[in-house]
């Protein structure tokens, strides 16, 4: 009898460990997993022929890019091509080229008429020599229809203190990091061997953009920013633990050439709806600062880590989704002692580049177990978004290396 009970228990345990995360979606949407266990899958891109490209942050089969192909269109991606000997985050398709970034450079690969990569082992180097000091090193990329390449260069710093993340260390004035990071740089997608000298600092005061996308409805660049840390830990006299978990907002901006979003001097407080002076620069939680800095379109709860942005331009989803923004949140690590939040994909309804209503959670349940106090316990962490040629939405996960396809059917 005891033996049977033991076997039963192990059977139950086995089943539990094999369980899939149950992803919840609005009515009419369905989700299918197209690949799993591919490691740290960061951003993704889907080609017009349906090929799915994954940029990896750890080498898989010794390579940093995977192409998944479903040649017979039966829904099973039977063909996997691995290439690129570097890790990174950014990936994009433009004309007959695939673009991919390492943490310091951008490369491109020509595609032939059959959509095969002409020379997977010898990419052309489009941009090189970008700041990579480990913190906020990922280089997200987006390309506009005119062939301009936008690259995020995250600040290797929390808030530009003399000594990074050290309690009591003052903010540097002016912040020297902004000369080469903490913003978006613009290059040409069709020119090789560019670096800072050939690029333009397109927008500044952006601590660490991970999601960025070009909006073809209004022809502007939009970004999602990871806000600063340590308000409560370094200034407990100004911020309690709850305020530290909720401040500052994670932000979503439209950025035009020359714009400044205010980092490190200010952060966005979504409760006061103000740009508040950073305490490292003399702020007290109330004083405003950076009057010339732009304001965000949306302030999301603090620390949720918006890792991907995608404007929906397809025809498959209902009308309310057209030209709206999907944002994949990676989930927080620094809301202790509260539980971590934000392992989900949200939708912001938009028209003409402006939100037309409140943001809503579109896809949830990625942690696989409800609330987690350590992000390590989340089964999946949303990280990349892409739209397929049929208007389906693809979501990647850099915890377990899953990619899903979300489709809509009115029936």
């Amino acid at each position, binding site marked *: 009898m005891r033996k049977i009970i033991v076997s039963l228990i192990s059977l139950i345990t086995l089943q539990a460990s094999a369980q899939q995360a149950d992803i919840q979606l609005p009515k009419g949407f369905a989700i299918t997993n197209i690949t799993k266990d591919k490691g*740290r899958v960061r951003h993704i891109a889907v080609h017009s022929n349906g090929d799915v490209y994954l940029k990896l*942050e750890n080498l898989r089969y010794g390579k940093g890019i995977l192409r998944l192909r479903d040649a017979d269109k039966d829904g099973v991606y039977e063909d996997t091509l691995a290439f690129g000997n570097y890790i990174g985050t950014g990936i994009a398709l433009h004309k007959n080229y695939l673009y991919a970034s390492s943490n310091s450079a951008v490369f491109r690969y020509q595609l032939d008429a059959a959509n095969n990569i002409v020379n997977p082992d010898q990419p052309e180097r489009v941009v090189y020599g970008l700041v990579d*000091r*480990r*913190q906020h*090193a990922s280089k997200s990329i987006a390309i506009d229809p005119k062939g301009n390449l936008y690259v995020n260069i995250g600040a290797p710093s929390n808030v530009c203190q003399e*000594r*990074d*993340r*050290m*309690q*009591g260390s003052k903010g540097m004035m002016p912040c020297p990091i902004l000369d080469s990071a903490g913003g978006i740089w613009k290059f040409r997608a069709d020119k090789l061997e560019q670096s800072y000298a050939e690029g333009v600092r397109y927008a500044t005061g952006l601590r660490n953009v991970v999601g960025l996308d070009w909006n073809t409805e209004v022809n502007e660049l939009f970004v999602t920013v990871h806000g600063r*840390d*340590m308000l*409560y*830990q370094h200034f*407990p006299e100004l911020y309690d633990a709850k305020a*530290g978990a909720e401040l500052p907002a994670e932000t979503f901006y439209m950025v035009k050439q020359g714009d400044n979003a205010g980092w490190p001097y200010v952060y966005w407080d979504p409760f006061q709806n103000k740009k508040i002076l950073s305490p490292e620069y003399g702020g007290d939680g109330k004083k405003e600062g950076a009057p010339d800095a732009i304001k965000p379109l949306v302030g999301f709860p603090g620390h949720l880590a918006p890792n991907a942005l995608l404007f929906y331009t397809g025809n498959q989803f209902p009308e309310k989704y057209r030209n709206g923004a999907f944002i994949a949140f990676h989930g927080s*690590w*620094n809301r*202790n*002692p509260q539980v971590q939040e934000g392992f989900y994909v949200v939708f912001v309804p938009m028209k003409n580049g402006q939100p037309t209503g409140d943001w809503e959670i579109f896809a949830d349940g990625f942690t696989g177990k409800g609330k987690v*106090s*350590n*992000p*390590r316990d989340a089964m999946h962490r949303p990280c990349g978004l892409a739209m397929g040629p049929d208007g389906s939405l693809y979501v990647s996960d850099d*915890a377990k290396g899953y990619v899903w396809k979300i489709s809509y059917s009115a029936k």
Partner: protein
Amino acid sequence: MRKLIVVLSLLTVGIVSQSMQTPNAASITRGKALYAQYCMSCHQADGAGAPRMTPPLGKTDYVTGDKARLIGIVLKGLNEPLEVNGEEYFNPMASFAHMNDQQIADVLTYIRNSFGNKASAITPAEVKAQRAKIK
């Protein structure tokens, strides 16, 4: 009388060496509060760190091994490629040199005896000695 002194000094030596080795409960209690204040946001409540960003504190030689190296990381901070138990971590650790010797000893004694760890205490004198080397 002489005998008594010998016994007493032996006892004292015993107590001193005992306190060098066995973590003191009061130090661990103080260390736990300091951990919550200074360390927990990055290293997490369970000491397991955050994927890609902050390394775990349990079952790693960085914590239970060489005391001088551990004290040095807290005093100087750390921002260089770091692999712990086969995983790489990217976020820098700040210097906590603004904490005093007793506080650093307490918090390190706490982490050396939490999250599955069991290691000897760290004393304020050991922190002081490392601090002197840095200056």
